[in-house]
């Protein structure tokens, strides 16, 4: 009986996969199962120390140039074959865009249940998971009455835990790939510095309080540090400081980020209508009476031209350390 965790790669292994491994280890220890990992991609030539101390017993690396980019049919085929081979009772995958899709396909093929986008995993006689539902308004504790079971783990919810330096054994496999009914025409990385507003996870928005269009670079710097999209209130757009495509609000874009940082935005109801579903709202405004302070999670009364650069600096400091 084993647990299989899928390590997602983008050239190098992604952090979310390592997080998933740490979360899986907790389940492995509680259940007494072995933890194995699956890698699909080009030849695995990363420094193996990246996998040190994670508790992975064996890494199965399926190496093929044509596996570098995600191909649903091929990935599902390999995953299901390996899961069956290893008699995996629990399969864990990062809940990224491709990860979720991969899980759903695999679950259907294996005819098992899938708990998608979980924030915690546990084991108590069976696999248990915690997942948010209803746009995060309700937390659901679920358990699998039958195993095998599949879970996908939301990135940035588990901490990477390393104990000691033990490395996993690496089994490299180069098996022939099944034909796929879809072809990859092109793979594009997003233009650097540009994140689309509509489904952005983090948004930094500026309003009349930024003082003038010459101050956008201050916010854009924070966007870069965060990997965030840039938004604006109607006041800023009306003043001609920025293009309407950045407008967040009732007559602009309605957004649902995890984090919304409102800089120099008063918080008029039309603006709130566009971002009220944000998971966390941070307000930075000079005016302590601004309505947005009634509607935020964290508020800083102060000069955004001073606060924002410091925040960007703090983020960069912490990330490099």
């Amino acid at each position: 009986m084993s647990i299989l965790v899928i390590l997602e790669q983008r050239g190098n292994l992604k952090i979310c996969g390592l997080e998933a491994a740490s979360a899986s280890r907790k389940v492995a220890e509680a259940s007494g199962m072995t933890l194995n990992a699956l890698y699909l991609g080009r030849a695995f030539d990363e420094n193996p120390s990246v996998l040190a101390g994670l508790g992975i017993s064996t890494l199965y690396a399926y190496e093929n140039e044509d596996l570098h980019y995600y191909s649903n049919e091929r990935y599902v085929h390999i995953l299901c074959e390996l899961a069956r081979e290893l008699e995996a009772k629990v399969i864990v995958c990062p809940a990224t865009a491709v990860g979720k899709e991969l899980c759903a396909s695999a679950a259907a093929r294996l005819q098992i249940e899938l708990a998608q986008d979980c924030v915690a995993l546990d084991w108590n006689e069976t696999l248990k998971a915690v997942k948010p539902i209803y746009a995060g308004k309700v937390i659901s504790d679920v358990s699998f009455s039958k195993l095998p079971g599949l879970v996908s783990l939301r990135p940035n919810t588990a901490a990477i835990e390393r104990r000691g330096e033990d490395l996993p054994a690496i089994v490299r496999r180069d098996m022939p790939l099944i034909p796929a009914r879809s072809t990859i025409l092109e793979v594009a990385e997003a233009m650097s510095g540009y994140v689309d507003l509509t489904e952005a996870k983090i948004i930094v928005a500026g309003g009349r309080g930024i003082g003038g269009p010459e101050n956008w670079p201050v916010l854009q710097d924070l966007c870069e540090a965060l990997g965030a999209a840039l938004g604006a209130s109607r006041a800023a757009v009306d003043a001609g400081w920025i293009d309407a495509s950045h407008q967040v609000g009732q007559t602009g874009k309605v957004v649902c980020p995890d984090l919304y940082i409102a800089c120099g935005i008063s918080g008029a109801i039309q603006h709130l209508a566009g971002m009220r579903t944000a998971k966390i709202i941070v307000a930075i405004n000079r005016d302590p009476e601004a309505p947005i302070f009634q509607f935020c999670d964290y508020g800083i009364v102060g000069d955004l031209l001073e606060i924002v650069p410091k925040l960007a600096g703090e983020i960069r400091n912490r990330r490099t350390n």
Partner: protein
Amino acid sequence: MIIAVLIKHVPDTASVLTISDDGKSLTLNGIKFVMNPYDEFAVEEAILLRERLGGEVVAVCAGPPESKETIRTALAMGVNSGVLISGTEQLAGRGLSMALAAGLATLSPDVIFAGKQAVDSDGSQISERVAELMGIPHASCITRFELKDGKAEVIREVEGGHYHLSFELPALFTTQKGINTPRYPTLPNIMKAKRATIKELSLSDLQIEPALLESELLVERLAPARRERRRQLIAGEPLAQVQKLYRSLQEEDKVL
């Protein structure tokens, strides 16, 4: 060409939800239900495809009898007909997708659209599972769709980029927000939708044994997530303020 759209009848996201006394379910009385917002993009994409290349759009929905309202919404937007698969209220991902796959199989669709996720379960799995069960290729989170020479060319989103893919039909695609602008129903279509007959398929019609579909993923407990805004003002010197903010966002809220 038969274009199918998978739609779901879900509570409106603005609603405040209360957890029932048993602690395992939600009290949904008095809550306003709507078509899953992501499904609107799927319906619109299906209708756009029909307007471009002809064919018929069928909306398929699995759910309680009230789901017919959502099918009527799809009809009001302009789909040609609707099908309700009944008896699926207690099913989870595995069983629900099997019922839907069986229902869709009766239509032999060339293209299937669906929304990328349902805003109640936030699962993003049913549609993909349906495709797998039907043995057809699929892609999730598409932001563009085009039918060229009998092949579907799509752009699908991934973190930090996108893939430009080509698919042989039949295939299934789940739509991301922004792929199009869902049309507002016109009054004549609303009226027509009110009078339309919606086909109903039960599990026995689909020759599925209900016991096979039973959910193996159980809800042990539901708890409300923090709803009220914290309204926490962070005081102090700017540097201390941003440091405290960073810590809260990173460690407590985990949004960074």
